[in-house]
Each structure stands twice: as structure tokens, then as C-alpha cells.
């Protein structure tokens, strides 16, 4: 039976972005409905042509940086959208604080979304926060 997952991505650390992306890509490609809401320090990585590299939290972040075979988190989020129709939604408040609009973000990100809309959509589903 397919599930309805709502993933809130806030942290700008490598480990959390990676785990959220792994979860989103596997769930979406397995037929679950996945919505990812990006806000706070997680959002700037999705500004077009961003060269920003996430900070490492600990041992696993370092391991992932040293291993060439770890799929990049942005690629996994993109796969979630392309293979499993995951919705990748930027937080409208975070965009306002950054003083940019949705067009400044990577094309796989959907429309800027407010919390009220996100919470309405998330009703009855599973909410995961990274």
C-alpha cells in the first residue's frame, strides 16, 4: 500500500540532506507519494548555480565526502522528482528572507509554498523532519 510522506528539510548539514534525499528518492521511486518542504539552512543549496557545500556534522559526513561513490543529495532529490513524481517545495518565508523568488531556484523545485498549505496537504500523512 502506498504511503504519503511529507519530509521537512531544514538542516544545512551534509548528513541530514543526504538522509532526507535517500528517503525521498527511494520512497518516491517505490510508488509512495512524497512531498519535500525546504526551508532554513537547507534551501540555499537549491539556488541555481549554487556552489555552496554543506557543512559536515561528524564522522559520516567526512566518510561521504571522501567516497566518490556516494550519490550527491541534489541528484537524489532530482531522481525523486523525475522517477517518482515527488514534489520539491521551497518555503515561501525562506525565499522572502533571502530576497529571491522561486525562479532563482533549480527547475525541479516547485512553487513557493506557505506553511498553511503544506500543513493542509500533510494532514493524515507521515511527517519526517531532517
Amino acid at each position, binding site marked *: 500500500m502506498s504511503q504519503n510522506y511529507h519530509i521537512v528539510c531544514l538542516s544545512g548539514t551534509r548528513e541530514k540532506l543526504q538522509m532526507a534525499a*535517500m528517503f525521498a*528518492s*527511494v520512497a518516491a*521511486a*517505490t*510508488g509512495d507519494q512524497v512531498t519535500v518542504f525546504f526551508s532554513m539552512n537547507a534551501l540555499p543549496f537549491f539556488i541555481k548555480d549554487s556552489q555552496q557545500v554543506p557543512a559536515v556534522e561528524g564522522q559520516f559526513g567526512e566518510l561521504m565526502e571522501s*567516497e*566518490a*561513490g*556516494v*550519490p550527491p543529495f541534489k541528484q*537524489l532529490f532530482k*531522481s525523486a522528482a523525475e*522517477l517518482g513524481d515527488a514534489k520539491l517545495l521551497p518555503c515561501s518565508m525562506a525565499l522572502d528572507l533571502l530576497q529571491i523568488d522561486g525562479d532563482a531556484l533549480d527547475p525541479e523545485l516547485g512553487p513557493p509554498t506557505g506553511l498553511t498549505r503544506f500543513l493542509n496537504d500533510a494532514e493524515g500523512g507521515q511527517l519526517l523532519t531532517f
Partner: protein
Amino acid sequence: MSEFKTIDARNTFCPGPLMELITYMKQAEVGDMLELLSTDNGTASDVPEWIDKVGHEMISSEKVGDVWHLKVRKLK
């Protein structure tokens, strides 16, 4: 008809090999057979789970040296 399309996902970590397989599965025709090569042990258990959930056929799973050979058939 015993031709497998080989997907070489060796030396990539979870969920890289699974996502590679899913990408090729989407492009394949019903009845096509794919062989995924992976050095990631987690993939050897994840792929049968995914195949089972999505409704394709797991033909075989075998480890030769350090490499898993996971053979599957697209059913729908």
C-alpha cells in the same frame, strides 16, 4: 530470449544502484530482463524488496567475488 541488459553500478553506495536500476526499469519494455552489478551489500537486500513491492520479478541474486549480480524481469 535470455539476453540481459547489464547495469554496472559497482562502487556506488545506497541508494545509487537501486536508483540506477529504477531508471533503466522505467525505460525498459515489459518482459525485458536486466542485470544489476553492485558492490553495495545493502543493495542486495533492497532490490528484492523494491521488486516485490512494485510487482516485478526477481530472477536471481548471486554474489561473485565482491560483486552482486541481481537479475530481474520487468512485468508491467
